[in-house]
């Protein structure tokens, strides 16, 4: 048991994680490409047009995975934040900072594609639907996290402060979601409900799942790339980074 623990912490050191991440990145890019091509192929070529929505619905192959990812990445961020606070490992904070922009990107994509979907479906770019509103607030939370980390010069302090914010955010997300739902049901007349999912053909579901996997792989690849850059930047004065850079020239 203790042996395994030591092994885990070995990978928590940037010096050992840097080359490991470097070896993993091409694999995740490859998987992202494969799943992406497969998912889009299924989504655009094989899946039938929707009975009510025609071809326009196909944006869900990006919209739904983006929404999933935006929520999931916040959880992963909070997980890294908690680990960083509990074990004081440098890598955890770096992972949280590396994930935040990707999470924010997916939240933004989800809103954007939601608007593009909404226009042909309900004739309006934006409705104050519970899900859209929650997604918007999630985007605010991501932006707050990124802004806080950007404003603090000392990276250690930035990590810890960001970690506390991420944990406070993750406790609050269910409360916010619940309150927005409550608000939405009270003002029912003002909005169109998105919750009535169109009955989905099996092919549609497959396309969506493949696209979700592609987004997943893409997130991991990008986060690893970003974490490698953060490592180099933060540890630029350490021997291992110097040796690495010297070897490259």
């Amino acid at each position, binding site marked *: 048991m203790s042996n395994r623990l030591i092994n885990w912490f070995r990978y928590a050191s940037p*010096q050992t994680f840097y080359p490991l991440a470097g070896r993993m990145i091409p694999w995740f890019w490859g998987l992202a490409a494969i799943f992406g091509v497969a998912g889009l192929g299924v989504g655009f070529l094989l899946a039938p047009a929707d009975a009510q929505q025609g071809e326009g619905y196909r944006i869900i192959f990006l919209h739904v995975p983006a929404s999933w990812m935006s929520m999931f990445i916040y959880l992963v961020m909070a997980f890294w934040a908690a680990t960083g606070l509990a074990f004081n490992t440098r890598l955890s904070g770096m992972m949280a900072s590396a994930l935040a922009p990707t999470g924010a990107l997916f939240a933004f994509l989800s809103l954007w594609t939601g608007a593009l979907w909404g226009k042909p479906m309900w004739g309006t770019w934006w409705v104050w639907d519970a899900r859209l509103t929650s997604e918007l607030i999630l985007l605010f939370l991501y932006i707050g996290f990124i802004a806080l980390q950007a404003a603090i010069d*000392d990276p250690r302090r930035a990590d810890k402060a960001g970690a506390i914010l991420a944990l406070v955010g993750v406790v609050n997300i269910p409360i916010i979601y619940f309150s927005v739902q409550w608000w939405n049901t009270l003002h029912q007349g003002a909005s169109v409900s998105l919750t009535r999912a169109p009955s989905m053909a099996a092919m549609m579901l497959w396309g969506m799942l493949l696209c979700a996997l592609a987004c997943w792989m893409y997130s991991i690849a990008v986060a690893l790339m970003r974490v490698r850059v953060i490592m180099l930047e933060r*540890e630029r*004065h*350490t*021997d291992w980074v110097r040796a690495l850079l010297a070897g490259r020239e």
Partner: protein
Amino acid sequence: MLEASNLECVRGERRLFADLSFRLEGGEMLALQGRNGSGKTSLLRMLCGLTPAASGEIRWRGRPIAQLGDEFRSELCFLGHQNAIKEELTPLENILSTARLAQEPLDEDAALAALELVGLLGREDLACRYLSQGQKRRAALARLVNERRPLWVLDEPYVALDKAAIELVAGLVGAHLQRGGLAVLTTHQVVAVPAGRVRELTLDDDDTAQQRLRAG
């Protein structure tokens, strides 16, 4: 009683000191010297548990201070670079509210006596913002008169003080050491303390200060 082993301090990308160890017993004082930026204040903040050490350990009565937590803090009196004096309050209100926050309430007579000793009697009802730098420092140091906690950590206690006040503070520290207390203080000037043993530690190793961080 207070023991530091292999302390390392890193600020930003600079390593201020490393492998710093010392031991302090009751009745002893550690006088920290060194030029600006050598890490004196950082070391004091480490000793208080405000800043974690990059590596190494600090023990109080044989146990790491991180574990002791409140138990350690209840035996510690810290006087920082800033006075921790509220400008809006009078010296008397300041000393009373500080004591109340430290959960060691002081009656007004004792507080007035302390202010008299540091030479602020007659100013006790004047808001601190009207006091001079030296008088503010005196108001902050008035805390020490009735302070009976065993470990004093003082950052530049003599700064902004005149000669008489410096002697007075040295006297307070001496009396504290005589009672078996410990003191750690930073200073730029050598001031004789009437009682107790003084150890000196100079953080002036240019090599260490210049040394860039080498993490493994």
